């Protein structure tokens, strides 16, 4: 066999398919990848070090800027960790508002994930179609929290303020239309033969390696592992809603993508049930929380199910009003740990499909 020469290629920081500044140094033999070495850290802003110099409430805006696509779920993780540390009771209405805005945030994140994945595979119209719905959802979130993306809506002990007049009816109306929109996505993107040819049986992941490499979120569930924190370890009031957890069969890029689309349908169901139940619940939106939060000395680790996977907050406090140490277990960062072995022997075009299906967000990878 004639010897072929390998060469190095930068799948570099500035690249349309890397969802931000993320570099993969590829050793290539023709089009086949021999070795892939991911290099991240181009967006490392040292949030964990900054959090040590901020009070407990001032850390909330930093959690928005990590996974800036589902900001409410990041706030929720941090806020529930501190509440667990201080043992604060959250009023009923605040719990419901957290669920509704959290699931809306998950919907915007999954819609963007669907649209950008269609863009990665080459379908620009899929991107435009998904962004049409995303703008509607961001209008609702902006009406509730005042900001489109970096919401900072959760507070330790409750939420910032109550839903404005008529907001819940607007959300309800949009949720009635969502199944129709999701049918459109399926028709345009999921049913597309070229899309299926590019993503089916590409980058397959066995359940054992997925669990061993502690991948989480749609990446784990696409391999058939039934592990969703909202079901297995319910936090907040998730046990009052019934919804299924979509699972994939052979863990390839198509299953990861399709799990996200079906999770959107489940989020719609949760929001509709939450809106039904919040009608007869009213009361304060903020629990009894001292002006200056001084949690007792101790540590807590609390994790919730964010749109990219399990987001976990480890908060250690030394009794002062500033956290002693905040560590964030970031799903996109851990999901990338297995990228090197996963793309060995794969063509470059499939690397784009695999990287898009893991759905990383660089603010979260580099923290």
């Amino acid at each position, binding site marked *: 066999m004639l010897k*072929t020469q390998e060469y190095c290629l*930068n*799948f*570099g920081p*500035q*690249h349309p398919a890397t969802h931000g500044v993320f570099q993969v140094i590829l050793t290539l033999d023709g089009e086949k990848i021999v070795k892939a070495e991911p290099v991240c850290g181009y967006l490392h802003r040292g949030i964990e070090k900054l959090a040590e110099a901020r009070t407990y409430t001032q850390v909330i805006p930093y959690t928005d800027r990590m996974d800036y696509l589902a900001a409410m779920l990041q706030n929720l993780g941090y806020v529930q960790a501190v509440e667990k540390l201080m043992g604060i009771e959250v009023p009923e209405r605040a719990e419901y508002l957290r669920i509704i805005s959290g699931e809306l945030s998950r919907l915007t994140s999954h819609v963007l994930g669907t649209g950008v994945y269609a863009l990665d595979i080459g379908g620009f119209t899929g991107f435009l179609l998904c962004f049409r719905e995303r703008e509607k959802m961001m209008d609702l979130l902006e009406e509730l929290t005042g900001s489109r993306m970096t919401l900072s809506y959760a507070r330790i002990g409750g939420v910032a303020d109550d839903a404005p007049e008529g907001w819940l009816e607007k959300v309800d109306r949009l949720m009635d239309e969502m199944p129709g929109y999701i049918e459109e996505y399926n028709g345009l993107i999921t049913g597309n033969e070229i899309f299926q040819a590019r993503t089916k049986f590409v980058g397959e992941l066995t359940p054992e390696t997925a669990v061993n490499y502690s991948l989480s979120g749609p990446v784990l569930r696409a391999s058939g592992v039934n592990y969703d924190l909202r079901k297995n370890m319910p936090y907040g009031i998730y046990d009052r809603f019934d919804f299924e957890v979509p699972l994939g069969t052979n863990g390839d890029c198509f299953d990861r993508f399709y799990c996200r689309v079906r999770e959107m349908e489940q989020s719609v169901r949760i929001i509709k049930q939450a809106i039904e139940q919040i009608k007869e619940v009213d009361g304060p939106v903020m629990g009894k929380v001292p002006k200056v939060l001084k949690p007792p000395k101790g540590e807590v680790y609390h994790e919730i199910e964010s749109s990219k996977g399990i987001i976990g907050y480890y908060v250690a406090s030394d009794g002062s009003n500033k956290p002693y140490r905040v560590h964030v277990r970031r799903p996109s960062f851990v999901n990338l740990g297995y990228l090197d072995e996963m793309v060995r022997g794969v063509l470059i075009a499939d690397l784009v499909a695999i990287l898009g299906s893991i759905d990383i967000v660089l603010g979260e990878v580099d923290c």
Partner: protein
Amino acid sequence: MSDWAGVFIFFTVALVFGAGGIVTAFLIQPRRSNPVKLEEYECGVPTIGETWVQFRTSYFLYALLFVIFDVETIFLYPWAVRFNNMQFFTFIEMIIFIFILIVGLWYAWKEGALEWK
């Protein structure tokens, strides 16, 4: 002589159109050359390892097949333009020409030149 003038005019207009764009761009463009601009662009970071590498044959085979069938379509154009006032014989002749190329395509397909090794 006159029809040759037509060809000559067509040729010079094409030349002027092409070269003219390049020359005016050279004259009026703002130019700032510095060492980094002349380096190769690879996603914003310097390249790793040596980049003068012999490429694999499958790239060359794909290019070869493309050129063959591209040239074939060029031959089809004049025939298609003068299609309606031609006798039946030229139609048969062109069908034979196309058939020969289809045999070539079938052979390349069978030999696996299209699959990516």
